[in-house]
């Protein structure tokens, strides 16, 4: 059963028109063929916005660890704590810029291309990485809900906003091109891609600061240790299909005042107004449930 049969549908056309308007057609082709794509900063957001994101990431770090890092020092400094770095979860409400980031048209177009118009944000986090030879992320996939063999459509996708330059030595993401076509997870033996005799070779993803790196939920990927001084920072956004559970319970934790600052699409995106699961004993009406039912009949719905 091919997904091609759905490409005449209004659901697909709606996403494709957005992809075309944003200049992303070649990127979805690359994504389909290789399981990932790198979208340059000029197709994502202005430099000023990227700076706001960097400052917000450093602000999260300061709030949660007490350690202040100046933006101008990011290429040269180290964290006070030894080790590969820090990850900070549940940051959506820390700064409005994170809310703007998940609503960024390029981010959304790619997430919808992979998980349908009804896509929801599963989680977002920021990572700060420093020089350390630990292999923190052996090869893995982000999609875990369904055991292999995996369906041909993504149930999960990863949109990572590189806030500093990704290149060999900087601890970039490691990708195994075309691995999304395997329809399975890497085995333990296949996980360590750094070994000289590694059975599976990965490539380092090079991307200027401000790029989006997008991959399919079943693409095998990991991360190279950082060899250079300075810090690698990013904003990792995981999206999922509407019928999957989100990692983060945004519905119960995002305050109404945050929802009020955004259009209703924001509430849809974080699952704050999902019809399911219902908790008041009254199932949603058929009309209200239509978008979820549509998702079952078209992978782009």
């Amino acid at each position: 059963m091919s997904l091609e049969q759905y490409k005449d549908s209004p659901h697909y056309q709606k996403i494709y028109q957005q992809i075309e308007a944003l200049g992303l057609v070649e990127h979805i082709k690359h994504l389909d063929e290789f399981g990932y794509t790198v979208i340059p900063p000029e197709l994502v957001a202005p430099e000023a916005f990227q700076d706001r994101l960097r400052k917000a990431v450093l602000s999260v770090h300061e709030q949660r660890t007490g350690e202040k890092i100046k933006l101008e020092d990011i290429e040269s400094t180290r964290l006070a704590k030894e080790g590969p770095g820090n990850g900070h979860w549940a940051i959506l409400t820390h700064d409005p810029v994170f809310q703007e980031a998940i609503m960024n048209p390029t981010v959304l177009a790619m997430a919808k291309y992979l998980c349908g118009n009804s896509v929801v944000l599963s989680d977002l986090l920021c990572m700060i990485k420093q020089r350390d030879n630990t292999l923190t992320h052996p090869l893995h996939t982000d999609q875990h809900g369904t055991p292999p063999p995996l369906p041909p459509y993504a149930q999960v996708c990863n949109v990572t906003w590189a806030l500093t330059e990704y290149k060999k030595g900087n601890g970039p993401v490691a990708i195994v091109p075309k691995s999304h076509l395997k329809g399975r997870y890497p085995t333990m033996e296949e996980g360590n891609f750094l070994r000289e005799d590694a059975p599976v070779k990965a490539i380092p993803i090079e991307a200027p600061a401000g790029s989006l790196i997008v991959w399919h939920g079943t693409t095998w990927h990991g991360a190279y240790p950082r060899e250079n001084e300075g810090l690698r920072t990013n904003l990792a956004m995981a999206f999922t299909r509407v019928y999957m559970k989100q990692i983060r319970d945004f519905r119960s934790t995002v305050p109404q005042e945050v929802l009020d600052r955004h259009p209703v699409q924001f509430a849809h995106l974080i699952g704050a107004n999902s019809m399911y699961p219902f908790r008041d004993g009254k199932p949603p009406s058929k009309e209200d449930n239509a978008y979820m039912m549509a998702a079952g009949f078209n992978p782009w719905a």
Partner: protein
Amino acid sequence: MSEAEEESQSKPAPFVHETRQPFDLSEELKARVDSLDLKDTVQHAKAEGYGYIYDAAPIEFFERLKEAIYRTADGTEGPRGSSMLLARDPVFAEAVLNPKLLTIVEILCGQGALLSQLSSTIIPKQADEPRKGGLHADQNWTPAPFPTHNQTITLCWACTDYTHEAGSTKVIPNSHLLRRHPTPKEVAEEAGVISTACPAGTIVFWNGSIWHGGGTRTIAGDRVVLHTTFSRLAMRPIENYDALGEDWLADKPYEMRVLLGREDFLNKGGASNHAAKVADTFNWAKT
């Protein structure tokens, strides 16, 4: 929580890398199937996509269930029922913890499966002749091609006899092999449909891909059923029981915590990545 369970919670399990394929049961699960006399039930489910659990509980339990279904139903006449039943009577929690039921759920939805919906229906006589229509697969939100691994399972506690005339659920055996939803034409034609049949006191179940629908009751009396739906741990449940706190869970076994998603790392709040739950979640998701 028992000491062993507390200990298992404090020590994250090692990661499992191998995935079990459908009906490739672990030795432990095979032994459980044998000890609960479920071998034929599992074979039937594997062969045809649906099946029956006989002697899941004493008939007195089904009588308690039936009484609770009538008592909690919305309304007193006509087709009726209710949903969000878990905490509305202790008999409902007992039903979802039934060992035979949980074994079939694990086989069809893996370890860590979630309670998705707990609802009841009371259906009086509907018509003089059976009606067509209503066929669907319960994996409503999953697009085709359906994943090879089953995503949801519905188990109906038949508190009254299931027959064609009594309006038992109709199914198309093996339709799950098509791994898609039925077309409107297929829904209208119902080619290959059969009525499930079993005595009161049986659980009839089907996987999430089987095309099925409600039958038409053409005889007097009520068809009384408790519908228990479960899903793989990563699926969004239909009902939300987050309001049930630790006080409600205090006298329930660990399995109830798992069924309510309290022991996996998904849909959690706080600023943590809930690392202690990660290994269990990933391992369960491979079964």
